C-alpha cells in the first residue's frame, strides 16, 4: 500500500464584496498560500448555513473557514453581525461535542487585505494540518 503524504482539505467561504476580493488581491500580489484551500463564493458571509459547514466536514474537509467583511463594513449593512452570532454559537457547540476548535474559524478580510487573506490561509492551513485528518466529523462513505 502506498502511503500518501497528508494534505489537509480546507473549504473557505468568502463573501463576494470583501473577502473574495481580498483573495483576488492576494492573487494580484502573487502572495502564496497552500493549494489545499478552495474558495466558495457567497454573496455575504450571512449566506453560509451551518449545514454547509457540516456538509463540508462530512465530505472530507479537514477545516472550514468563513471570511466576510469587517463588522460595520458589510455590503448589506448587517449580514456579518448575524454571521458572527451564528458562528460563535455553532463553533461553541462543535467544541462542546469534542470537535477540535482549530478546524473552524471566522476571519474578517476586507477587499484591501490581500496580505491578510494569504497570511490567514497559511496560518489556518498550518493549524489544521497539525490536527491531522478530521476523524470526529467524518463520514467514511464519503472517503476516497
Amino acid at each position, binding site marked *: 500500500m502506498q502511503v500518501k503524504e497528508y494534505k489537509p*482539505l480546507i*473549504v473557505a467561504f468568502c463573501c*463576494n464584496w470583501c473577502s*473574495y*476580493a481580498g*483573495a*483576488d488581491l*492576494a*492573487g*494580484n500580489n*502573487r*502572495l*502564496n*498560500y497552500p*493549494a489545499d484551500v*478552495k*474558495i*466558495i*463564493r*457567497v*454573496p*455575504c458571509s*450571512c*449566506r*453560509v*448555513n*451551518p*449545514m*454547509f459547514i457540516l*456538509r*463540508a466536514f462530512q*465530505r*472530507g*474537509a479537514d477545516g472550514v473557514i468563513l471570511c466576510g467583511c469587517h463588522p460595520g463594513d458589510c*455590503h*448589506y*449593512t*448587517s*449580514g456579518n453581525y*448575524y454571521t458572527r452570532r*451564528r458562528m460563535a454559537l455553532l463553533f461553541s457547540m462543535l467544541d462542546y461535542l469534542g470537535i477540535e476548535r482549530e478546524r473552524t474559524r471566522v476571519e474578517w478580510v476586507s477587499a484591501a487585505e490581500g496580505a491578510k487573506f*494569504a497570511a490567514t490561509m497559511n496560518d489556518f492551513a498550518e493549524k489544521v494540518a497539525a490536527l491531522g485528518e478530521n476523524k470526529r466529523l467524518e463520514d467514511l462513505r*464519503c472517503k*476516497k
Partner: protein
Amino acid sequence: MQRIGVFVCWCGSNIAGTVDVEAVSEALKREPGVVFSTNYQYMCSQAGQDIIKDAIKEHRLTGIVVCSCSPRMHEATFRKTAAAAGLNPYMVEIANIREQCSWVHKEMPIGTEKAIILGKAAVAKVNLNTPLTPGESPVTKRALVIGGGIAGIQTALDIADAGFEVDIVEKKPTIGGKMAQLDKTFPTLDCAACILTPKMVDVAQHEKIRIFSYSEVSEVKGFVGNFDVTIKKNARYVKEDLCTGCGLCTEKCPMKKCANEFNLGMDTRRAIYIPFAQAVPKVATIDPDNCNMLKNGKCGVCAKVCTAGAIDYTQKDEYIEEKYGAIVVATGFNPISMDKFDEFAYNQSKDVITSLEFERLTNAAGPTAGKLLRPSDGKHPETIVFVQCVGSRCDACAEKGKEYCSKICCMYTAKHAMLTRDKYPDTDVYVFYIDVRTPGKNFDEFYRRAVEEYGVHYIKGMVGKVSPEGDKLIVQASDLLADKQLKIEADLVVLAAAIEPDKSARSLATMLTASMDTNDFFTEAHPKLRPVESPTAGVFLSGACQGPKDIPETVSQAGAAAAKVIGLLAKDKLVGNPCVAHSNEMMCNGCSSCERVCPYGAITYEAKEFRMPDRTTLVRRIAVVNPAVCQGCGCCTVVCPSGAMDLKGFANEQIMAEVDAICK
C-alpha cells in the same frame, strides 16, 4: 440534464504558466453534464467569445463554465457573450483559476490539480443553475421630500429643476427649518435670511413643487419606485387657498400671550399666527391649544376681520394618499434639552441661554430686534461666556448628553463671539473650549480672526459650574493652560448645546424600514461609497438627519441626494438583481424570522389559502419576498428553520454541490 460547455482560458501565460490548461479541459470533459470542453489563449477576447458563442449554437449548450480570471473581472463579459448567443446569462459560472490558483501556486501539478477541482465545483453548480430573469417594476416619476429645511428645500429644487414633480412635507406651518432662525452664517457672515428666503420663494413658485406644510407622513407602503404614502395634513383652521397672508388676523387676535416657538419662547405671538414675515406658504395658522373659539366657542375675531373668508373653525385633519418613486428624508436636528445639566443653571436663570436662542437674540427679526440684550432685564451684557461641548462628546456611562461631536458648535460659537465683539467692542467675550475643531474651507482662518482680530478670549478648559448671584452669573471654570481655576462674573452665558436628530425621525424610520444608529441618525447604505442613500432602496438621506452637518455640507449632500433621486426617476423601469430570495410557500411557517433579519424590509406576510387533500381550505401565514427590494444577501435563508427560504443563484443545493465537488 444540462448540456454544459467548459472554456478554459490561458490568459496568455498568466494561467497557462502554472496550470496545464489542456489537462484541465480534458479532465472537465468527463464531468457529468459536460458535452464540450476546450481551451484558448484569451477567452475574453473577441475571438475567445466567438468560440463560446459558436459552441453554444453548435452543441446546443444550456450552461457554461469559464475557467479564467476572477468573476469580479469578467463575469459580466461572459454573461453578455452567453446572452448574445441566446443563452440565459445566469447559466454562466466562472471558475477562478487565475487570482485564486495560478497566481498563488507556483508548481504546475499543484496548480493544475486545484484548477480541475475549481472547474468541477463550477460544473456542479451549473448543473443546478436555472435561467433567471431580472424582475422589472415601473417607476412613479415623483419624489417626496420629508422636511422643509435647507436640506429639503435644496433637494426639492434640484429634483424639480431636472423636471420631476416633488412634494415637500413639513410639519411646521412654514418651510425654512433651522436656517430660517439663524442670523448670520459662518465663515462668510452673510445673512441667513438673505440666502435662504429666495430659495423658499423659488420653492413656492416652482411649478413642479407642492408644499404640504403643517403636515406629517402617517403611512408608507410599497418599495423603490412604487411607494404609497399617506400624508396627514393637520387642520390649521385656515383655508390655504383663500388666505392672502395679510396678517390682519394676527394683529386682532385677543390671545396675546402664546409662547412664540419661532423665537424659542423668548417672546409671544397670537393664537392665530404666521411664524415670520417671509414664511412660505404665507398663510395664517390657528394654534388650537390657545384659541378661545376652538376651545370654548367664544371669540371668532379672526373670522370677522378676515376679508378673504379664509378662517374655517370646522376644518378637520385631512389624509392625502399619493404615489412616489423615491423618498428623501430631510428631518433635520434639534438642540438637546438642557434639563440634565443642572450645573449650568439653564433652568434657574433666564440669562443662561442656548446658542440657538442667542441666534434669535442677535437676529434683526428676533425678540429684541437684533439688539443683544439680556433676557432677564433687557440690559446690555458686558461679559459673555460661551461654553462649548455642552452635551457633546459625553461617554455613554455618564448617562447624559451624546457620545458624538456635534460638529457645528465650534464654528457658530466663533461666529457669535466675533459678531458680538464686532457690534459691541466694549463686551468681554470668553469661550471655554476643549478642542477647537475647524476642518472646513476657511474655517480655521475664521476662528483665528475671532481670536486675533476681535480679541475673543479662548480658554482651554471646561466650565464646571454656573451660579446666579444677584444679577450676575458666576462662572467657575478651569483654565488648563494656566493651571488655574477661574471665577468670572458674567452677564450672559451661552451654551453650545449638542444637537440630536428630530424626535419624529425614529417613527419615520420604522415606517420606511430605514435603519438608524443608536443615536437615531439614519444609517447610510455605505458609509464611504453610498453616503446619501439609505440601505432601503429608494430612500435617500439629506442633511442632519444622517449626522451633524453645517450648511455648506448639508447643501452639497442635498444636491447629491437629489442627483441620486433624479437617476432613479429618470428610469422608466427598474431592473432588479435576479439573485434574490424567494420563499417556498408550501414549507413556510410564517414565523417572521426572515422578516426580522432582512436589512431592507423586503419580506412581508400574507394570509394564503391552501387546498388541503381532504378538500378543506386552510389559511396560513406565509412570507413573500419583494424581488424589487431584496438585494440578495441571503441572511433570511439561514434563519429559516424549514429551509423554505432560498436564494436564487446561490441556492442551498448549489452551494452544497460546490462543497461536494471540492471535497470529492
